[in-house]
């Protein structure tokens, strides 16, 4: 049969995975043939004499050799066949074992709905059982209209992550033409013009593949299995490729189902996400209304209390206030401002990022915030160390909010330290991950492990005088920018707050253009 790139294989009940070309087989074939020949040569003179044919040539020494050669030639093929069968049946369970393992796997997969598990199982089992160089399972990514590797055997992780096969690549076009047949690199390329062959060879190379088995479900391409062998693919015979095709047909529906499940899970998550966002928004709206109302109603009486005390404190004329009265009035002024701070923070939290976003320098905002703390830090022997990335890009944000973040982190650190210690603030631009990292660590008293998950809760505080909104507000702001905040702490040693704010250079550039565009128009 003429071998073609995708072979229309004859149905064969015995699939082969690698022919056992062993010395044993050859020795066995030789032995069988030799004994057959010797037996025949030994019997021939008797047969001749029985049949009445006789002469001196019957006893010639060349004669048995001739008979043996004739038997060798005529019986070689069939003997080899039977010896092979015999060996396979009684001695070489390996390939039947491989087949069985793989088919068992295909059956197991029908109850698995996790695409990652399925692909891990498929590529690893294939790779190990058949001792292949590479195996990769590719599945479609409907969002980007291409195929990506879900799992790979014999690949480095980074290499497998990079491979994306666009829907219009020659390989996928060809697969859509040829259907579920196994595509073998060598024979397929031979059939094509050199230009087409080059284009297709690139796809094979990018998948490190010697042959590719498409996974079709009802005419739809659900995935690809790309195999690369350590040895030339000629060690696999047509039966093997037929087996690959059967295997692909068996696992294709599993892969497709798992992909559907994955998509459903994703959609479900997105739904949950938008739902919780919506709830959060509604909550925020309610809190904002409440906070605005409270702020107005409370700030007026606070203004009166604090105002009257200040009038007395700042009174002109000869009359001096008694020291205890002065202290009381000062306390009144201070405490009214503290009370007003609560509602202000609540409002800030609920108003969200409605303030204007502008190009700011994180370094500058940090400087400003530090200058607010400088006095306290110097009286308390607190050393503040800045560790700034030299290539810190400008950031688009609401200045007030970023200042609030720094202020809360630093105030927290100062409070945790008490009278003596060190605060380290780090600003880093992580270009690869497209984010800005803010790390604020202190040598303070730390947070007990059982409280670590509570520090971001509203009204959580260990200080007698504090409100407990600082870190809560910080977290809200960070989340508003799509970032994250976490804390690591050890009681008695110190705490470290790590913030990640996403920074997309592209987006910033766009915003800047918008801004300049706007200025031109005005």
């Amino acid at each position, binding site marked *: 049969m003429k071998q073609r790139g995708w072979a229309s294989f004859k149905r064969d009940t015995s699939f082969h995975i690698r022919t056992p070309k062993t010395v044993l087989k050859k020795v066995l074939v030789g032995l069988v043939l030799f004994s057959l020949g010797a037996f025949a040569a030994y019997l021939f003179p008797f047969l001749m004499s029985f049949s009445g044919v006789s002469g001196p040539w019957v006893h010639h020494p060349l004669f048995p050799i001739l008979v043996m050669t004739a038997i060798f030639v005529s019986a070689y093929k069939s003997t080899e066949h039977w010896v092979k069968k015999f060996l396979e049946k009684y001695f070489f369970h390996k390939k039947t074992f491989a087949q069985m393992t793989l088919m068992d796997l295909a059956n197991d997969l029908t109850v698995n709905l996790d695409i990652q598990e399925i692909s891990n199982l498929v590529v690893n089992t294939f790779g190990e059982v058949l001792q292949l160089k590479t195996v990769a399972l590719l599945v479609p990514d409907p969002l980007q209209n291409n195929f990506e590797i879900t799992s790979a055997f014999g690949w480095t992780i980074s290499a497998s992550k990079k491979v994306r096969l666009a829907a219009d690549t020659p390989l996928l076009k060809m697969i859509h033409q040829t259907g579920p047949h196994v595509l073998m690199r060598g024979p397929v390329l031979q059939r094509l013009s050199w230009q087409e062959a080059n284009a297709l060879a690139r796809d094979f190379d990018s998948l490190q593949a010697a042959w590719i088995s498409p996974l079709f479900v009802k005419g739809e391409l659900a995935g690809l299995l790309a195999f690369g062998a350590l040895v030339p693919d000629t060690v696999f015979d047509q039966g093997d490729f037929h087996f690959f095709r059967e295997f692909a047909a068996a696992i294709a529906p599993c892969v497709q189902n798992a992909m559907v499940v994955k998509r459903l899970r994703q959609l479900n998550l997105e739904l949950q996400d938008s739902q919780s966002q919506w709830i959060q928004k509604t909550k925020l709206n309610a809190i904002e209304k409440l906070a*605005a109302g409270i*702020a*107005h109603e409370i*700030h*007026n009486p*606070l*203004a*009166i*209390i*604090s*105002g*009257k005390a*200040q*009038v007395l404190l*700042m*009174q*002109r004329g000869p009359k001096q206030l008694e020291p205890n009265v002065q202290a009381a009035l000062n306390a009144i002024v201070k405490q*009214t*401002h503290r009370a*007003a701070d609560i509602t*202000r923070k609540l*409002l800030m939290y609920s*108003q969200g990022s*409605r*303030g*204007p976003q502008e190009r700011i320098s994180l370094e500058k905002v940090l400087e400003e915030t530090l200058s607010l703390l400088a006095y306290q830090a110097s009286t308390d022997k607190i050393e503040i160390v800045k560790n700034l990335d030299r290539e810190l890009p400008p950031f688009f944000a609401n200045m007030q909010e970023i200042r609030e973040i720094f202020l809360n982190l630093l105030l927290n650190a100062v409070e945790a330290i008490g009278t003596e210690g060190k605060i380290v603030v780090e600003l880093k631009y992580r270009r690869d991950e497209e984010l800005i990292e803010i790390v604020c660590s202190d040598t303070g008293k730390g947070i007990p492990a059982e409280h670590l998950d509570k520090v971001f809760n509203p009204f959580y505080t260990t200080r007698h005088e504090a409100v407990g909104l600082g870190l809560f507000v910080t977290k809200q702001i960070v989340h508003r920018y799509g970032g994250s905040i976490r804390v690591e702490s050890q009681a008695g040693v110190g705490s470290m707050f790590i913030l990640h704010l996403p920074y997309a250079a592209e987006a910033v550039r766009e915003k800047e253009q918008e801004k300049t565009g706007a200025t031109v128009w005005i």
Partner: protein
Amino acid sequence: MSKLLIVDDEVEICEFLKSFFEDRDFEVASANGGAQALEKLATFHPEVVLLDIQMPGMDGLQILKRIKEIYPKMKVIMVTAVETQEKIEEAMRLGADNYITKPLSLEYLEKDVQDKINILAKGF
């Protein structure tokens, strides 16, 4: 003597501000609502107005607009209980000269009022 008008719907706030500034040799008048404020503006001719943003009826922003229409040179300091960004931006756009939030720091307020009067004295 410099003239100061205080507009706030809270009588007590007007009172303590009045006593504070009178103590510093200001001539002070107060109004508890929009209509009263406009009336005082016409008769009293203040140099600086302390204007509460949130008031029932005619609010601070509307009064500010009228003041800047009729007396463009008059200095107006907005007083607000809640720092709503939009209101403050709106006030600055309408020509307010500064804003201050409640509870007030009288030290800061005194300095600010004095600044405005100095600017007026220089003839700006």
